[in-house]
Structures are given as C-alpha cells and as structure tokens.
C-alpha cells in the first residue's frame, strides 16, 4: 500500500484512511482524540457541508463532524479499496 503525506482533510468523499499520527498541540485536537480520533483508528470521510467545510467522518459506526482546519492535524494513510 502506498503511503502519502495525507491528512484527514485530503480524504475524498467515501474514502477511508487510517490515522498515522496526530499533532496534539491544539486543545480541540485533544478533544477529538477523546472522541476516538487516535493513531491506528480507521476513519471514513462521509460528507461535507456546502463549501466542503465542516466535514463529516465515520469512525467505528459513529458520525463525527469537524472543520478542515482541525482535520489537518491528523495525518492518515488512505486505505485502498479492496486492499
């Protein structure tokens, strides 16, 4: 599987990724970690509001929405469909 320097914000609609690393400096990011966005978790970009922001993700069956500015703190490796 090819790994690129992707963040959550660069996942396309319907695309899944695994969180590789998190920049924990921002308090909002820490909150997102408490909600389960931690290294190793598989996450899918489900939809966006008009203009692409905020974004909605699906994480182990629960929906969670956050803004692009926070999504950039999470580096992900995209999961290639079927791979």
């Amino acid at each position, binding site marked *: 599987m090819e790994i690129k320097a992707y963040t959550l914000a660069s996942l396309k609609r319907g695309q899944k990724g695994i969180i590789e690393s*998190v920049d*924990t400096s921002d308090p*909002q*990011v*820490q*909150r*997102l*970690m*408490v*909600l*389960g966005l*931690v*290294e*190793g*978790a598989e996450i899918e970009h*489900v*939809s*966006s*509001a*008009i*203009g*692409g*922001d*905020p974004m*909605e993700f699906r*994480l*182990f*069956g*629960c*929906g*969670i*929405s*956050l*803004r692009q500015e*926070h999504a950039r703190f999470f580096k992900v490796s995209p999961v290639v469909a079927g791979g």
Partner: protein
Amino acid sequence: MAKPSEIRIFASKIAIRSDVESSIAVVGNPNSGKSTLFNRLTGLKQRIGNYPGVTVERHVGTMSFDGKKTELVDLPGTHSLSAHSLEEQIAVDVILGRMAGSSSPDGILAVLDATNLYQGLFLLQQLVDLNKPMVVALTMTDAATQSGIAIDVDALSEVLGGVRICSVVATTGAGLENLRSAISELPKSAPPNAIDVWPALRSAAGKLRSTSKSNLSLVECERLLVDGVTERNQSFASELSEEAKGRLLEMRHELFVDEPGIAIEARVRYDWVRENLLKLQCSTPPFYSWRASVTAFLNQPVAGTVGLFLVMAIVFQAVFAWATPIMEFIDGSTAVLSARVGNLLGDGAFSSLIADGVIAGVGSVIIFLPQILILFLLIILLEDSGYLARAAYLMDRTMRSVGLSGQSIIPMISSFACAVPGIMATRVIPNRRDRIATIIAAPFMTCSARLPVYALLIAAFVPADQIGFMNLQGLVLFGLYMFGIVMGVLTALLMRKTALRGPKPSFVLMLPEFRRPNLQTLMFQLLGRVKVFLYRAGTVIFTVAVIVWALAYYPRSETIVPEAQKQRTIAAYSLSGVQLASEYERIEHAASAAQLEQSWLGRAGKTVEPLFRPLGWDWRVSAAVIAGFPAREVVIAVLGTVYAVGDEADEKTLSGRLQASTWPDGAPVFTLPMVIGLLIFYACCLQCAATLAVIRRETNSWRWPVFAWVYMTGIGYGGALLAFQIGSA
C-alpha cells in the same frame, strides 16, 4: 470562567428522600438512549426541574422493584470523566460525589450503545476504575443487529472486569425486568474487578494520593494527573495543597513528558478498545435500513441544506395552520365564560375581578397553549430524531461568519418556542464566550409569547391581501421572524467584536444516526413543558392579571357614579325607547372611561405617556406595555382590560377596539407607523422575567441579564421611535 459556585444552584434540586434506600447514577455517552431508558425505568415517578430543557435538566426518578425503592439520577451525557463542557462537568461532579448537597451515588448504571461500542467502552473503562458497584445496560441492540453488528455479551462482561450486563430494547421493553432486578441488587453487589488498562497511571495516582494527604479518591487523582488543575475540575482539585500541586506537576512531567495527558490517555484507552472490539463484536450482513437511505440523501451538501430550510418552513407553517381552530375555540369559550360569570355575579368589585381580571387575563394567555404545544412537539421531534445536530453541522459555516459555531444553532432554534429552554441548551457549548454570545442573541428569536402580540396587531392593521402565493399578513409575520433572526445574529456579531472578543469558536460535534423518536420520552418532555406553561399561567400571569385589574379598578371615584346617574335622569326626561337605551349605553361607557382614566393604571399610563409620546403611544398603550414587562404576553390581557371599558367598547373584538381608539382630538392612535413601531418594539424588547432569571442563573452574574435588558429595551425603543417619526413625517 466556570466557578464552583456556578454548580451549587443545581444542588438545591437534589432532595434526599427518606423512603428511598439507595441512589444510582445513570451515566452514558450522549445519544446512547440514556434518557429513554431512564423514562422506561422510572415511569411517572420522576421529578424534573423548573424547565425541562433539551435533555440538560436534572432528572431524578424512583424505581420500585420487589418492594424496594431505588432513586435514579439521570445525568447529562458525557464522553469522558475529563469534563469538557458545563454539562459534562455536572455529570462528572455527581459521579465523583463532588456535587454540593448530594451524596456520592451508591452505584452506577452505565448505558452502553451497542451501535457505538467504540466510544462507549472508553467511558466504561474510566467508570470501572471508580471501584463502585456497577451494572451495564446494553441499549440499541436492535439497531446494532440491523446495521450488521453482533455482540458477544459474555466476552464484553469479561473484558470489563466481570460487570453484569443487561441487554435491553428500550422501545419494546425487552430485558427491562432483568435490568430492574440488577439495579435493585446493585448497592449490595461487589464492584467490578480492576481492568488495569494503564498500570502506570494507577500507580502514579496511588502515590499522589498518599503524598497529598487529602480526601481525594484514586480516580480523582487519576483525573488530576491526566488533566492537571483546570476550570472544570475545581470541585476536587481545590483539595490539593500548594505543595501537592507542585508534586502533581512533577509527576505529570514524568508520566507524559511534553505531550498533553489527555492525548496520551486517549491513545492508551482507545488502543485497548480496538484490541477488545475484535474479540466481542463480529460483523453480520446488514439489513436494509431507512436510516441509511435518509442519511445518504441528506449527506449531499446542497440537498441537505435545502432540506433544512424546508423542514423549518414546515415547522412554522404547522404552528400557525394547525393551532388556529383550537385557538378560536378557546377564545370563544373564554368570552362566553367571562360574560356568564359577569351576569351571574352581578355588579361590583368581586364580579369585575373574576370576569374582567381573572378569566379575561388568564384566558388570553391560555389561548396560546395549542401553538406552544405544537412548536415544542416539533422541536422535540427534531431533537430526538438527531436532526438538530445535523442542522448545526450544515449551518456551521454560516454561523462562523458571525463569530459563532454551528453549535449555537440548537439553542437558537429552541428559542423559537421559548428562550428559557433555548438558553439552557447552550450548556453544551464548551467555550464561555461563545456561550454568552449565544445566550444574548437567543432572546431575539421570535418566541411563542411574542406570537400573540404579533397576531393581534397584524390581524387588526395589516390587510389580508394576496401577494403572489403569499398572504400579506403571513408575509409581515414572516418578516418579523426574519427581523428577530437578523437582530440576534447582528447582536452576536457585535458581542464577538467587542465585549466577548476571543479566539474563533471551534466546532466538533457528534452526528448521531437518525432514529425514530421514542413516544414515551416525547410525551414526558411535552408534559413537562405543558406543566411549566400552565404553572406560569396559573401563578405569574394570574397575579399580574389580578394586579392590573386592581390598578385599573381602584381607586373608585366618588363623583363619576353620581354624575352618570344625574345624566341618566336627564336623558330619561327627553328620550325614550331605543334612543334612551343607546344614550344609557353611551353614559355607561363614558363613566367607565372616566373611571379608568383616574384609576392607578390610568395615572401611571399618563405619567409615563410623555416618555412614549414620541413613539405615538397614548396612555393606554403605555400602561399596557409597562404592565407587560414581567411577561410580554400580559400586554394582550391588559389591552383587553383597558379596552373592555371606554368609548371603544361598542366594538366586539379587541382588534376592532384598537382600530377605533382615538386621541382626544379624534385622530386614530393606531396609525400604520405607530403599529410598525410597536411591532419593532415587541420584536426587540426583553419583556420576560423568566428569561432574565435563566440568564442570571446560566451566567452566574447579574451583569448579563441587566445588560441584555437594557440593550434590548433600548433597541426596541429606538426602533419604534425611528419607525413612528419617519413614518409620520
């Protein structure tokens, strides 16, 4: 900043009941089906605080099983024992026994959503660490099966230290008896075994506890190590001595080096969760689900946004269209009742008190019950189905441009029903500045008490012309709603640019799956609100109606009655038949008008008239507006009383009387500019004691209610002045 004193307000609501043997805290993630389960378990035996807001108020109920009574406390949903918002702080303080006035719970009923084990198990690890008797209610198992998740309950119990797990389906009641029995045995049960997810934290907490020489529990020491001392954990962090605080800093550095403890905890605990999820959850093929189709449709950005506006349009349309027949019925009944009672009791002060004061006053408010019911019902439906969260998500970008976040949408939408639950719903907003800006903006939303004032003035003064597919009256009403929204949004923007300047609000929100709202929960919430409304009508509005009646009735003039008698005698000499009857009626009205004018209310109105003269209001309107300051809907009752007597009483309806009312020189009082000004005044002015009280309570200071009152009244006055002066020029 949230001070510990902010929390004490809630403590008064937790009465400790003597016939109850034990108290159990109901804990779970938001949207885990906690409140539905709580309602199922306690039924009607629950006590709710003053205003049951959108799942934020404190609910205490009693459950009976086998002759034993157990008290259940339904706590606000929380994701972690590290509180992030005021709501979570309340939940955590009750769980830890740090809520002033309430003892530590005897056990925990943990609610675990089978469709969201991932986040649920994070919280459950922390709850097991409490070392208290615990039972887990596994909810939403039907929804989990539908979406293709099968859960091994025995394995789940095992990973959670052997805790008892009861599967329940709250909608059908399956598994409830089993759960009741588990809860009633809970105080005597042993706590679950420690699961030691994070041994390093446990041992550090033990060390901190022994060095600090305080009453802190092991779990509280764990929280302090993870979070440090924050504004949200003052209830127990204050136990630390200065020396222990220094030690805490060192220990945190040893444990976490440079990273925040909360981030490390998330990693450690979610690693454990992921590892165990594989053991206890397996996938089965999902069923077709209507939720998935609805969600998929609403997930398209444009369709979702259009859908949101459609939904809101339908809500407001329903409020007006469905309520009208019932309102007309109540209106008719009140008039008939008032007339009958008046005839039955004859003349005199008592008869006037009952007919003109009580029945007319309270009746004119009860009439809005149908509208309020429908509005509340629809808003609860939107909330419970999970749609309001989606509205917040869709509107975040728009709200950001005025310095708020999507989370402010939910309080604002609730405020269309009533600002009180709306303001209480701001508790989920984590940042205090965002929260206060929302609190100040929320009362601008057109609440159900403004509706009667608008309805009366529009019906009387706006022609029912058809413009395109819209009715002009409807259009004006719609315009007033929009005006309220614009004023609220501008206010928020102004606040964020001045007194509440600060970092951009953030936005993180869980988006629950759509679900069919539970009928019982719905009925409970609705009943709670009806009770509150009727209580208000029965107390505040009743009192105001009686006071206003007394002010309008007393003092009785000694000269007016003999004078009228004299006129009658004179008329009887010169007139007869129909003419005489109509002359008698004229004399009667003139006497009433003279009496009213020299009554306390008349004098008060005349005293303040110069202040409101520039707005085009005469002393009667001024008196009614003054009387309406405690509760704006009272203005209708007062106008009803004031205009029930005097020159205009020939007209049958209140709106007819308003149209006929004139200045002493014969010019009409209610001109178009004056009416527009009056509408603007009511759209802005904060005439609601309950809202002021809730702002005081929620901001824990008199500064904000006083500011809101002065600001809103000032804008209302200025707007009315502009409208009248420009319009009359």
